[in-house]
């Protein structure tokens, strides 16, 4: 067992444990904080795969920006465990069935994926480094990249329009 394996197991347990905490904890602030821990664990996995750029952008965008806004909203609404409404029994049942179906589809889809034979490249491989990523994004995938930035722009305009509405 080398360091990479130890780290892998540690991060995996951390990720699964904290994502379970997200859905089981009664206090929504704890849920958000657990989600942040999950993002950290996932970023750790990216680093193990030598995708440093992805790892750090995951932290900056999700843990650093989006989760702060989540925390903002939850703190201002002041949701407490006592005031949280009890969910309908049938709703819970339907949720379990829907989740189970989704899991089945995922397992079926991933069972035959061609990545089964491939091994993950840990601590080496150039694909995830920022130089390589930049070249690929601005040469091969420049059109989808620009289209997605237009999408962001339209979302931003939409947010401003919604905010301006009296």
């Amino acid at each position, binding site marked *: 067992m080398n360091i990479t394996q130890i780290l892998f197991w540690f991060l995996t347990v951390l990720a699964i444990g904290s994502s379970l905490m997200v859905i089981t904890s009664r206090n929504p*602030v704890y849920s958000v904080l657990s989600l942040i821990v999950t993002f950290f664990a996932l970023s750790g996995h990216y680093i193990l795969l030598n995708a*440093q750029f992805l790892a*750090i952008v995951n932290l*900056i965008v999700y*843990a*650093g920006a989006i989760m*702060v806004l989540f*925390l*903002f909203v939850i*703190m201002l609404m002041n949701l407490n465990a006592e005031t949280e409404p009890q969910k309908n029994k049938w709703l819970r049942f339907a949720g379990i069935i829907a989740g189970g179906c989704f899991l089945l589809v995922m397992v079926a889809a991933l069972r035959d994926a061609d990545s089964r034979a491939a091994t993950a490249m840990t601590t080496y491989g150039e694909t995830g480094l920022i130089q390589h990523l930049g070249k690929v994004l601005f040469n091969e995938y420049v059109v989808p990249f620009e289209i997605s930035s237009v999408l962001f722009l339209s979302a931003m305009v939409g947010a401003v329009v919604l905010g301006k509405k009296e």
Partner: protein
Amino acid sequence: MVTLAIDLAFILEKFVLIAVIIVISLLVALYTTFGERKVAGYIQDRYGPNRAGPGGIFQPFADGIKLFMKEDVIPNSSNKFLFVLGPAVAMTMAMLTSAVIPWGREIELFGRTIPLQIADINIGILYVFGVVSMGVYGIMIGGWASNNKFSLLAALRGASQMISYELAMGLAIIALLMLTGSLSLKTIVEQQSTGWWNIFYQPLGFLIFLVCAFAECNRTPFDLPEAESELNQGYHQEYSSMKLGFYLFAEYVNMFISSALMATLYFGGYDIPFVNDAALTESIGTNLMALLQTISLFAKVGFFLFFFMWVRWTIPRFRYDQLMKLGWKSLIPLALFNMVITGLIVLIKENGWPF
């Protein structure tokens, strides 16, 4: 039996380096509190602390002991776990950035060449951004867990201010990255030590970065989260003893680290001005050179720390809407303008004048 394949000397070397850097940053932060009071005294035409030790030199230790001895109050209505977590997160995140700053080139010890940087990762600047954006959580968690309206309001102020100024800071850095072509702080410093410092290429970018650094550290004129006339004391209202000390201390560590970052990015880092570093290394040896370089870096850091204090005791606080206006309506367009100009110049330099 599982055997671990670890390079023990490497681990040991990094541990010692981390310990030394943490101790140094804490010491510097400790004496920055003292320096702040002395500078404030000088600017306001009074002595400042001068009782403990010669010239008041032991004042920070006396302050520390006082904070430790005070009663540690955890309010009954607070969320106890998060109440303790808040200052811990603030302090940890303040310390983490020091991992990617190069404090000197390298030293030779016991036949090993040890670079004076904890981790030279090729995404150094992005790492700094990641850690800085995490710094919001210390304030937010602490403010919310106190279960006090003023604390919560101050925490929200602090968080929105930090998010807003991070954008302009990022845009200012992008212009710098266009010039250097590297995200590694070590490479940026090496480039500057053979040519001009980046401040000469990016004066506007540096100005934006400086203003944003003030806002990120919650320093005057941007210390709205601690505006005592509006919010009593700010997000650390309910804190006492060393937990309060951690919050106050994290601010000074942040100041130290952002000064080091400014020196590294724009003022040549450990480069000694007007000296050919390679030739000097030949004549006086690697270790002595590393010492001189570290002294050079710390002199620059010292200047920026003094600048932080100078501004604090000179400029009054902004109003909150002025702060947001400055961030979104002045700094971000200015940073975008700087970015476009820099991009144009880089293009023309590489491809020649097209007209």
